[in-house]
């Protein structure tokens, strides 16, 4: 049973004007509970527009979104409840911090859900442990934190609502390698702890190879491919035509293959490459 189903979604911007264009065209897919889905596509391919429909932030021009089999717009008054079940972390979410303490900033979402003060406190401590925010940070002003720390607080604010589905729009953009690794770990830990379904928009193919079960590839507003990460990264030429690429380590493997070494086409992480290349050595003349 799929937790989220998108049916024939079309979104038209600037309708009935000379600038009218479809940002998302007739997109359909469904996602099972607990899956981690990577969304890739060139800039302007419709990724952000697509995900903003999933919690009712945008309303489809055509088509529908089913959450647990129910259209999210079935009862308009319920849309706020939908937004706490489907959490959305925007690009550069740290620009949206606004409270005077980290605690109050993280509490904002849970408060809007109508939770009691005790429950809110519990959730805040829980999420802080999960994402590695120290307790003594809670009384600080979010504006005194570093860029990476602010990003973490902003993400914690969405996680504290404990959404079943959590969507990240380019969560690692602008972060240094350590910050990138931290955010990827937070996302992984959250999905494991709550068996949550995760959607991540990213331009970083190496990160996608590490965390995504499946990849959803957008191209010019259309859904071009939706398949396992392995099956998507196998289509290296097609990805390049769409302005994308495969992970760097896979590019090294492709180059080895051209040189005549028999390498499989499902190596997308450094771990996989190291295992395979060292086994070649032990296995002797496998490529002779």
């Amino acid at each position, binding site marked *: 049973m799929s937790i989220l189903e998108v049916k024939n979604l079309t979104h038209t911007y600037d309708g009935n004007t000379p600038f009218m264009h479809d940002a998302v065209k007739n997109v359909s897919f469904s996602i099972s509970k607990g899956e981690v889905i990577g969304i890739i*596509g*060139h*800039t*302007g391919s419709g990724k952000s527009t697509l995900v903003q429909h999933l919690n009712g932030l945008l309303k489809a021009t055509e088509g529908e979104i089913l959450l647990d089999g129910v259209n999210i717009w079935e009862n308009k008054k319920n849309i706020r409840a939908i937004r706490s079940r489907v959490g959305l972390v925007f690009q550069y979410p740290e620009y949206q911090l606004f409270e005077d303490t980290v605690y109050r900033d993280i509490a904002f979402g849970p408060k809007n859900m109508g939770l009691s003060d005790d429950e809110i406190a519990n959730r805040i401590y829980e999420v802080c442990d999960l994402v590695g925010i120290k307790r003594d940070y809670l009384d600080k002003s979010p504006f*005194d934190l*570093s*860029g*990476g720390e602010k990003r973490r607080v902003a993400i914690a604010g969405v996680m504290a609502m404990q959404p079943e589905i959590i969507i990240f729009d*380019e969560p690692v*953009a*602008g*972060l*240094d*390698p*350590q*910050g*990138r690794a931290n955010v990827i770990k937070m996302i992984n830990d959250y999905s494991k702890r709550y068996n949550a379904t995760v959607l991540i928009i990213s*331009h970083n*193919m*190496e990160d996608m190879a590490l965390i995504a079960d499946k990849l959803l590839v957008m191209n010019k507003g259309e859904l071009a491919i939706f398949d396992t990460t392995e099956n998507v990264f196998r289509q290296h030429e097609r990805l390049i035509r769409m*302005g*994308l*690429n495969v*992970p*760097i*380590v896979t*590019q*090294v493997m492709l*180059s*080895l293959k051209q*040189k005549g*070494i028999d390498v499989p086409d499902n190596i997308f992480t*450094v771990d996989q*490459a*190291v295992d395979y*290349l*060292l086994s*070649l*050595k032990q296995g*002797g*003349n496998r*490529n*002779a």
Partner: protein
Amino acid sequence: MNNIIEVKNVTFEYDDADRKDIILKDFCLDIKRGSFTVILGHNGSGKSTLAKLLNGLYKPTEGNVFVDGISTVDEKNEIEIKRRVGLVFQNPDNQLVASIVEDDVAFGPENLGHSPDVIRNEVDDALKAVDMYDFRKSTPHRLSGGQKQRIAIAGIIAMKPDCIVLDEPTAMLDPKGRAEIISTIKKLNSEKGITVVLITHFMEEAVDADRVIVMDDGKIVADSTPKDIFSNISLLKQVGLDVPQTTELLYRLKQGGMNITTDVISIEESAQKIYDAIHLEEI
């Protein structure tokens, strides 16, 4: 003069009411004319502050920054400095001002008071240099991220600068856009002889630089060739950075007992190294 930029004993602190941070202290750096320098460092290491000091957008609290021998500290030099050193930022949407591409690129030369026919040439040359001439009549908001960023670069090029400083110009771009920007930057450096200072979090973008500088806590902790820098994996990890995936692969193959050196970084060179190592085993 051999150095286009000389940073001499610069201390820089933000002096807000509630925030007094020393970002750089007694900082020195020379940038050679015509060189391609990459600056790496974690968020908050002082890279962006340095970038803004290089064209006088920020003035040093103490010390001096010289561009082509001219001090940025003296207000009357402002136009001469900005003409020589252009800055490109992360988000292209924040850098484009006009509704037509060529008007946007003309903004700089217009402010320098050039005559219309000179501006026409400068704009055309700049758009050709970034391969966006065909889009001169387009409207920027209809372009892709990589295209917009190239327009921002053209706006700098039109002022015929000696040096371009780019602060994470690819952070928001897709893989194709990133590749476009990096190849544009390399071309401007090798063909037009423009000095490039590129600040980035993507280790792969440092591969073809002449020089890589690693900053940590407002100080330079390493300053050498890319091969040299990326062979020092422990230092990079210590300052919160990483190595390119190619280096990591070679390093771990070596640890696993493969007879291989780790002194290359490009994809092609890495594949060749692995190929050679595997064949060597077989003989």
